[in-house]
């Protein structure tokens, strides 16, 4: 059948409301008599709470209730879905009562008739603290006291070793083992819409509705119902418009359960909208891994083995997936290379900081950064071209599905093809010549390369803590419009459009006739959510298969209605045809609903539901190349060009794929050059506002020259791989490699992110002082 939509740059159907300010994010939903909640949060990284005096606040104007840790006894702790052998499990209560373990740890909640009054009253609450020594550095934390959780007598949350191959033998047989300490600094996801919850309890119906800015409405419903000890089918979670997530809303937070509980106490709607300051303090952070890399090589550039001993900073508590993130790092350590022996040794530690968890890429960018830095270290060591080192270690296209020493099977790939295309687009040879000239003229110009692979389409259920499938229902309504219900819960990725494209093509209808509904647990069948670059590869596949089932049924009914042999019926462009007879699918749908003439045994209605369980992850890949110049006088970096060739399998909508790649690259740019969540030695958060935490702005970003190769994934019938995290995974090392290459003439082989002008300037000026 001719495709009209799939593969084309179709404008988004969600945009008209958003560009006119007519979408509804949580704070845009207004219910009568809504009360507003403000939190009192710890101002210390580690302190004993010796008293909370809420008497003045309770009497303040507009205040309806004040709750402290003593009041919330029956609410279960914040859930963590991952469980590793011998992992320490601290209980994370929704309000702290004895001790505060990080800045921003919620201590009390004030409920008032308006948000200003709630904040006024929160300021009147007197908390007495006895400050305790804070644990802030991962290496020291692992070594011993003081402890974040006294009861464990250690700060080590768990230790884990993974990987295959004899690493010791691999190193013995190497010509050289290169060592490097590498930091993946702590980052804040900073979705532009902070978190927010609106809770409404109807005591008569005993029904609680939570509107929450989340990526996982169904998982949240299950978890919050457990936390509140209420029947899951009396809890409805609605995710209205969500203003970005990047993993930060792939979680179940204390506030979500607490708001529900407060509404149940008061029988009135309650709302809490996170401030940006709260967002920095108490929404998950990402990365925060400090590791020692060892890489064994032969003289010709062949990598024989890779070991990574890494400290992973969990923060004070676990959120939903905190302990699982370093395991993803371990899985990805083979990068796009054939490395016979790989070992990761994780030491996960508690610190007096906010929890880390899945931030765009979730453990994979960390690994890719390490591997891609490793390739450049090898190149520097041997005086080889970084591209040649990579080429040398690629698996050949005929080796797919390719098994790594981290235990993965890469589904499909042609790494050389993407590399060649990027080299051509960049005119790599010429770049090298230009660089030589620039260097001769005393300029610091560097070329960065990264040839990444990532794990997407999370994932087979066996590999995920809470189900890795996705669901879809498609139906044709009596009047002929098409409704798609997806368990994925997109929040900016554009699946309202891309799923409508799939449905439009499969049913031969216009996308205007298709409505995609998501993010309401009372309307949509159970689903897993949007994260891990899975919505299209897993959720889109569920839609696709459901559509096939719907068409099968419609075809049988059409045959019956036309009085022809079902085997003779063909479907094209929205019509069932057999010989001279023909019927539109909408007509068939109406008959299915009227049900006056159905074949023997056929159920009325025209709808199909499918739960798709993927057999494997998918493994998108690509090559990024960029050119950076460092200003000798200021240390400032200018990106002269940025070239990316990504392969995310089959593309449903190139416009949306470009958007995902561009956004991802700029988030990588943030990590490479600007962003860093910094706590001081007392556990005080020094980067608690957008003033202190630098996000990339329009003037910091290069023009990105994008291109693609398309290697369909064999894992799903759409051939889609996923693209949401590609940019972030591929770009970070590319950017850093370019800057380090620029400074290579000064003897620089590695620098830790973010590459601030000050750091670079110190190196440059220090060096020129020495040589003067």
């Amino acid at each position, binding site marked *: 059948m001719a495709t009209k939509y799939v593969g084309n740059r179709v*404008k*988004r159907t*969600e*945009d*008209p409301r*958003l*560009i*006119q*300010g*007519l*979408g*509804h*994010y949580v*704070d*845009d939903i*207004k219910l009568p008599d809504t009360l507003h909640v403000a939190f009192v949060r710890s101002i210390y990284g580690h302190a004993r709470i010796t008293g909370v005096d809420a008497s003045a606040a309770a009497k303040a104007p507009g205040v309806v209730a004040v709750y402290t840790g003593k009041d919330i006894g029956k609410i279960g702790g914040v859930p963590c879905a991952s469980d590793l052998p011998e992992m320490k499990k601290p209980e994370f209560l929704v309000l702290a009562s004895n001790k505060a373990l990080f800045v921003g740890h919620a201590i009390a909640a004030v409920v008032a008739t308006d*948000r*200003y009054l709630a904040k006024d009253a929160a300021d009147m609450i007197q908390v007495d603290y006895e400050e305790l020594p804070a644990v802030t550095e991962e290496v020291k934390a692992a070594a011993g006291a003081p402890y974040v959780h006294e009861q464990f007598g250690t700060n080590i949350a768990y230790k884990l070793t993974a990987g295959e191959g004899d690493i010791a033998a691999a190193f013995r047989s190497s010509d050289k083992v290169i060592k490097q300490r590498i930091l993946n600094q702590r980052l804040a996801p*900073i*979705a*532009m*819409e*902070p978190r927010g919850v609106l809770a409404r309890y109807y005591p008569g119906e005993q029904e609680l509705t939570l509107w929450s800015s989340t990526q996982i409405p169904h998982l949240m419903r299950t978890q919050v119902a457990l936390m509140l000890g209420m029947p899951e089918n009396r809890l409805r979670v609605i995710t209205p*418009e*969500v*203003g*970005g997530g*990047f993993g930060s809303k792939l979680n179940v937070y204390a506030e979500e359960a607490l708001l529900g509980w407060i509404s149940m106490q008061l029988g009135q709607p309650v709302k809490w*909208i996170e*401030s*940006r*300051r709260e967002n920095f303090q108490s929404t998950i952070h990402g990365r925060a891994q400090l590791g020692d890399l060892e890489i064994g090589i032969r003289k010709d550039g062949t990598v024989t083995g890779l070991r990574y001993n890494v400290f992973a900073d969990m923060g004070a508590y676990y959120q939903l997936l905190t302990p699982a993130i370093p395991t993803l790092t371990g899985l990805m350590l083979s990068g796009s290379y054939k490395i016979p022996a790989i070992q990761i040794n994780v030491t996960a530690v508690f610190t007096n900081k906010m929890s880390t968890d899945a931030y765009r890429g979730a453990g994979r960018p960390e690994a890719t950064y390490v591997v891609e830095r490793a390739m450049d270290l090898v190149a520097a060591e041997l005086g080889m071209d970084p591209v040649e080192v990579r080429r040398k270690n690629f698996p050949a296209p005929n080796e797919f599905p390719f098994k790594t020493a981290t235990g993965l099977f890469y589904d499909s790939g042609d790494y050389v093809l993407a590399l060649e295309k990027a080299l051509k687009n960049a005119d790599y040879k010429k770049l090298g010549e230009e660089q030589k000239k620039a260097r001769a003229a005393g300029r610091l110009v560097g070329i960065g390369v990264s040839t990444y692979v990532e794990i997407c389409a999370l994932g087979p259920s066996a590999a995920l803590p809470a189900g890795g499938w996705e669901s879809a229902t498609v139906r044709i309504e009596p009047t002929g419009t098409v409704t798609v219900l997806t368990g994925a819960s997109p*929040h*900016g*990725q*554009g699946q309202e459009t891309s799923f409508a494209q799939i449905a439009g093509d499969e049913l031969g209808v216009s996308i205007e006739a298709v409505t995609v509904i998501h993010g309401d647990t009372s309307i949509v069948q159970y689903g897993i959510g949007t994260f891990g670059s899975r919505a299209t590869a897993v959720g889109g596949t569920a839609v696709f298969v459901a559509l096939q089932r719907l068409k099968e049924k419609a075809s049988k009914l059409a045959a019956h209605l036309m009085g022809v042999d079902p085997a003779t019926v063909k479907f094209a462009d929205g019509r069932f045809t057999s010989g001279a007879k023909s019927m539109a699918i909408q007509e068939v749908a109406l008959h299915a609903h009227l049900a006056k003439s159905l074949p023997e045994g056929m159920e009325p209605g025209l709808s199909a539901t499918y739960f798709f369980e993927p057999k494997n992850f998918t493994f998108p890949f690509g090559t990024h190349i960029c050119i950076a110049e460092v200003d000798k006088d200021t240390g400032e970096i200018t990106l002269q060009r940025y070239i990316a060739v990504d392969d995310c399998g089959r593309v449903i909508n190139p*416009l*949306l794929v*470009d*958007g995902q790649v*561009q*956004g*991802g*690259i*700029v*988030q990588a740019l943030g990590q490479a050059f600007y962003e860093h969540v910094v706590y001081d030695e007392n556990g005080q958060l020094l980067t608690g*506002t*957008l*003033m202190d935490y630098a*996000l990339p*702005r*329009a*003037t910091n*970003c290069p*023009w*990105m020259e994008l291109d693609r190769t398309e290697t369909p994934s064999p894992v799903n019938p759409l051939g889609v791989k996923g693209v949401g995290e590609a*940019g972030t995974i591929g770009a970070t090392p590319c950017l850093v490699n370019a800057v380090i290459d620029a400074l290579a003439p000064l003897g620089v082989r590695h620098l830790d992110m973010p590459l601030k002008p000050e750091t670079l300037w110190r190196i440059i000026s220090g060096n020129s002082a020495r040589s003067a």
Partner: protein
Amino acid sequence: MKVPIQVTVNGKTHAHEVEPRVLLVHYLRDVLNLTGTHIGCETSLCGACTVMLDGQAVKSCTVLAAQANGAHITTIEGFAVNGRLHPVQEGFWERHGLQCGYCTPGMIVASAQLLERNPDPTEAEIRMAIEGNLCRCTGYQHIVEAVQYAARRMKGAAAAD
């Protein structure tokens, strides 16, 4: 003590008594129910709250409602006229200038102001004009293209007039 204010928003005049401390953005969102203007920070650094106030793009989280007394304000809800999108809105749609849409109203207001002042901006000028508006989704490139598209459209329209 509340103070009386009168403001004209998207062509409609409103009179209210507000507490002196109420921010304009809260007045627009909570009193007038114009929720297209968003809030992304408390430090005037994100631009999500940008509106047109007497012809100037301002961050409405840094203006008190009381200060806006007598002002003419256009919020994102006022950009489409009689159901016809503003060229900048069109550009954002055509060129996929938004993903989650949260920064979008502020971006559109800031971009529209640029094009009023400079109908033919360079890429660098566009980037400079939206430097005060953060977007965490798009990487800005499609936003730049959206503004370029709008500039072409507006020139085309001007030529046709």
